[in-house]
């Protein structure tokens, strides 16, 4: 049906989301930096002063390596999940390819993410961990993460059209996830039998990879990368399939 310029449309939708979000904020981009800094300070206080932890050095950047991916994941996933239902006006009146709506929502969160990655990298340098060649892995692991988020969002956004409760399930899942991915604890504190499972969670795998690259200055292990690539691609494929199956009836349910 719709034969058009996908890139131009995607760009316009991403820019739209971003502009709308920031035009109504007097301090604009500053808010993107404030939230992770506040969370970083609070968690650092709790885990260095309240429950002193001697195993982890540079706790602030350690926790920031967890917070930045976690924030991105939850914001993109939650906004993406409600995007199709919230854009009912568009979906019911313009024959655009429906997949583009959740994907554009995820990608517009990436603008936000870029600012936070900038913060993370500057903090790494401030804490005296210099730039190294392994930083070249960063685009690879982030790219896989974005693929994963697009996949899972395609799935939940389509389901949300049929059952509006899906958004609340996603919300609860995000709260739970804060504890189930190693944001403020190290993976070696997790019993070995669970630790292997953690690597299949693309979000946990990304956090582990970031710490290896930025704090240890090492390249991420190939098993970790393979697991990340495998689960991200699988989730994206399943997401596309589910969305494709469900989109035909969107009109009747919106």
């Amino acid at each position: 049906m719709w034969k058009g310029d996908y890139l131009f449309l995607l760009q316009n939708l991403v820019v739209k989301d971003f502009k709308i979000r920031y035009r109504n904020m007097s301090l604009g981009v500053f808010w993107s930096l404030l939230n992770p800094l506040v969370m970083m300070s609070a968690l650092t206080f709790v885990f260095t002063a309240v429950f002193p932890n001697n195993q982890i050095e540079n706790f602030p950047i350690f926790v920031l390596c967890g917070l930045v991916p976690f924030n991105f994941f939850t914001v993109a996933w939650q906004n993406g999940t409600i995007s199709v239902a919230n854009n009912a006006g568009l979906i019911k009146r313009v024959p655009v390819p429906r997949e583009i709506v959740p994907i554009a929502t995820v990608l517009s969160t990436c603008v936000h993410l870029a600012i936070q990655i900038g913060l993370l990298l500057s903090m790494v340098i401030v804490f005296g961990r210099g730039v190294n060649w392994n930083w070249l892995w960063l685009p690879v692991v982030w790219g896989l993460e974005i693929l994963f988020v697009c996949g899972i969002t395609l799935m939940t956004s389509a389901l949300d059209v049929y059952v509006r409760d899906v958004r609340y399930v996603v919300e609860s899942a995000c709260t739970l996830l804060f504890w189930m991915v190693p944001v403020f604890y190290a993976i070696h504190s997790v019993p070995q039998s669970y630790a292997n499972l953690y690597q299949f969670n693309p979000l946990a795998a990304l956090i582990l990879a970031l710490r290896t690259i930025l704090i240890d200055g090492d390249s991420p292990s190939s098993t970790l990368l393979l697991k990340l690539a495998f689960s991200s691609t699988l989730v994206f494929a399943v997401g596309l399939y589910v969305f494709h199956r469900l989109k035909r009836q969107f009109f009747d349910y919106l």
Partner: protein
Amino acid sequence: MKVIQLQNVTKTFHRSGGQKLLRHYLEDILGKTDPERFFALKDVSFSVREGESVAVIGANGAGKSTLLSLVTGLAPPSTGTVTVNGRAAALLDLGSGFHPDLTGRENILLNASLLGFSRSRAHALYDKIVEFSELDDFIKEPLRTYSNGMMLRLAFSVAVNLEPQILIIDEVLAVGDQKFQAKCTEKIFEIRNEGRTILCVSHVSPTLRELCDRALWLDHGQLIMDGPIGEVSAAYEGRLTSPA
């Protein structure tokens, strides 16, 4: 060439209107709700040839808007087939792709891309749209600063200048002040005279009679008359005035 063809098309909707919570599914399973579906369209067949301009008339709730959603490919039919050749641009609910926080310019480009235009094509058409809308400097202001009339003018300018092969008009012949209305009507006639297909949903008016050659009369989802607009509108008005 037939640009629009509907064969035995039926479209049903849930009475609940679709919006569903988990609760509703549980009620369905427990058999608490009435699973009755209502017919928005019932066994409708017709075709439109290239260059024809067709009016769809009928009372509120007769299935006119559903018909347009099917033709634009937004909704799949429950049974039957819908075939459309060419890009149908709908003037359905003007400005549905608009966002109040974006400027006129940003909205124009966003809408062009939603309708499938490439970057270069959209920029090329941009000036034409602005000129037609007569919004001048307001084009750089966010849409929420516009008056209602200005918003409609912008939406109309976008829709008619994006060169649709099939123009679908939904009750929007009355836009803006009289001068602008005249200009809109003129533009629609111009599109028709270029030999493009027009599908128009509206209340019967002298303009409609002049614009369209043929009319479809829908009543409770059924196509009850298809013929020259003069005859159909006379029959339709006859039904309205005489107690049936």
